């Protein structure tokens, strides 16, 4: 037939395609609007069961070899019962765990897990048995009293970490790392949980406000140049002595030789 008859039904041949397209848009848009998965806000206080299950899977794949399938510990790694989300966030977030090899100290290295995976692991460990929690962000802003923080740092921390936070040696291959460039949350968690051979500074010893002040002091040190000039690693008399004896005394001797030499 040359022309379709328009009288019966008056439907365009493309009407079916358009109708199907409209149907798809309506159902898809309706699903997107009414679906319950929201990613706009991250809820830090209450973790969902999904997070804990993801954490359990990550733990079984990466950590259970040394720490046991139910965190009971093995000959290669201690039990994680009661360490809390703070310890997991610190160890995994700074890359110390998973440990690359047994030794006197777990070394800091690039973190192996993303922030979400770290949070999942922390939620899982905390769900098995409660322990120190990840600190409240209001304590990590660096807006405390740096003077009080400095005094507390010198009394509690400077003997291992150096008066400027440049780090120091302990016995038999262990060391206290330098504190510049460390995230405030990791500093707080390290104080709270006492990783490896660092002692525990619980909230009765250093209150949360004290910890906030110490973090403020460390951030002050990090952000302000030393008024005395080049810090030479803030190692004190050893570095400064090396510099003075080699360059200073060298220059003096050189000048002395030039002074007493005959003009050529």
């Amino acid at each position, binding site marked *: 037939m040359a022309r379709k008859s328009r009288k019966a039904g008056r439907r365009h041949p493309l009407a079916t395609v358009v109708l199907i397209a409209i149907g798809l848009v309506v159902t898809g848009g309706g699903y997107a609007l009414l679906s319950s998965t929201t990613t706009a806000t991250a809820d830090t206080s209450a973790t969902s069961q999904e997070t804990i299950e993801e954490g359990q899977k990550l733990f079984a794949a990466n950590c259970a070899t040394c720490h046991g399938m139910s965190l009971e510990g093995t000959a290669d790694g201690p039990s994680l019962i009661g360490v809390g989300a703070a310890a997991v966030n610190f160890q995994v977030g700074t890359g110390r765990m998973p440990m690359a090899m047994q030794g006197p100290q777990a070394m800091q290295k690039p973190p192996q897990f993303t922030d979400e995976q770290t949070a999942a692991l922390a939620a899982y460990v905390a769900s098995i048995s409660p322990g120190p929690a990840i600190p409240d962000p209001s304590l990590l802003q660096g807006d405390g009293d740096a003077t009080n923080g400095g*005094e507390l740092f010198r009394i509690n921390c400077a003997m291992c970490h150096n008066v400027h936070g440049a780090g120091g040696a302990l016995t038999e291959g*262990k060391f206290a790392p330098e504190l510049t460039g460390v995230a405030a949350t990791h500093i707080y968690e390290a104080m709270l949980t*006492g990783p490896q*051979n660092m002692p525990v500074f619980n909230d009765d010893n250093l209150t949360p406000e004290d910890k906030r002040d110490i973090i403020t002091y460390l951030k002050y040190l990090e952000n302000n*140049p030393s008024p005395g000039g080049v810090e030479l690693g803030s190692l004190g008399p050893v570095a400064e002595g090396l510099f003075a004896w080699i360059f200073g005394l060298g220059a003096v001797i050189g000048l002395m030789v030039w002074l007493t030499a005959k003009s*050529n």
Partner: protein
Amino acid sequence: MAHDEVSGAESSASDSSAVETSRTASTSTAVIASDVVNPGEPAHRQRVTDTDPKAAKRAQRSVYTLFYLSIAGSIFAVAAYMAFPIENDDVGSVRLNTLFMGIGIALALFGIGLGAVHWAKAIMYDKEGIDIRHPVRGSDETISRAVEIFDEADRESGFGRRTLIRNSLIGALIAFPLPGLVLFRGWAPQSEDPAMLLSHTMWKKGARLTLDPSGIPVKASDVTIGSVFHIIPEGLNDAPDRLEQKAKAAVLLMRLNPDDLNISPGRESWSYDGIVAYSKICTHVGCPVALYEQQTHHLLCPCHQSTFDVVNECQVIFGPAKRPLPQLPIEVDSEGYLVAQSDFNEPVGPSFWERS
């Protein structure tokens, strides 16, 4: 050099070019002929600024350039003082101010010094000269005149003749420094025996263990396994000699698993449920021992690396210390606070002569 076996003197081989008239009379050395020929002075060596006029011009230019640089440095230092002022709340401004002023002043002074030395070495007259050293002994007339003067003074003052005046003056001169002895004797600590001071600290029965620096008392329940508390005795912050007392009374409080502790007989009551307190003052030279390794239970002193084993009552396991850290006996009072049972049972810190 030739030696004279009889007198042991060496023949002098210097100043052969000058005629020394009084040499034989004054030095009283026996001069003997020898086969050693005096080589004389080395030949005068020309400097490059003497031989090469371009080098001389260059040296002259260097000298006045250095002096001009010195002027520039002085002006730069003044400008830096104004351009990089020290701000009240900017710690970095101190660094810049000091650095640039220092560079300017260093350039100013070095410029003068280097320029002057270079001028003297390279441009100034440099021929060698000889200064004859005259004999030390004076002439006979001078000596006899001096003797005359002394005699005259003695006669005119009557010092030798008037023995009463002379002796009483000598007595007065001996007596006048004696008050100084008494004055300076007051510098020594008189009322306190230093051995007693070193043997006792502020700790006594019932003194509460408090946090350093706040002075807040510590409850036994606050101390968890692996904790380290830095402790001062209650009342230390109000003591008039706070720092001297703190230097003896500082204590480190730790909690270990009670099963890990090896407690010797007689010290069973000194700890409480794994909570132990030890003096923080190293028994080697007195640094504060506070580097506690939580897992190995070793306590390290940062100064000379004496290592103490907390599990075995702080026995020394490494390093120059010879005695273990004294333990402070502690108990819990009725409110749950940690208190000392008594002072330390031995003097804290390094050895001293009267230490038994």
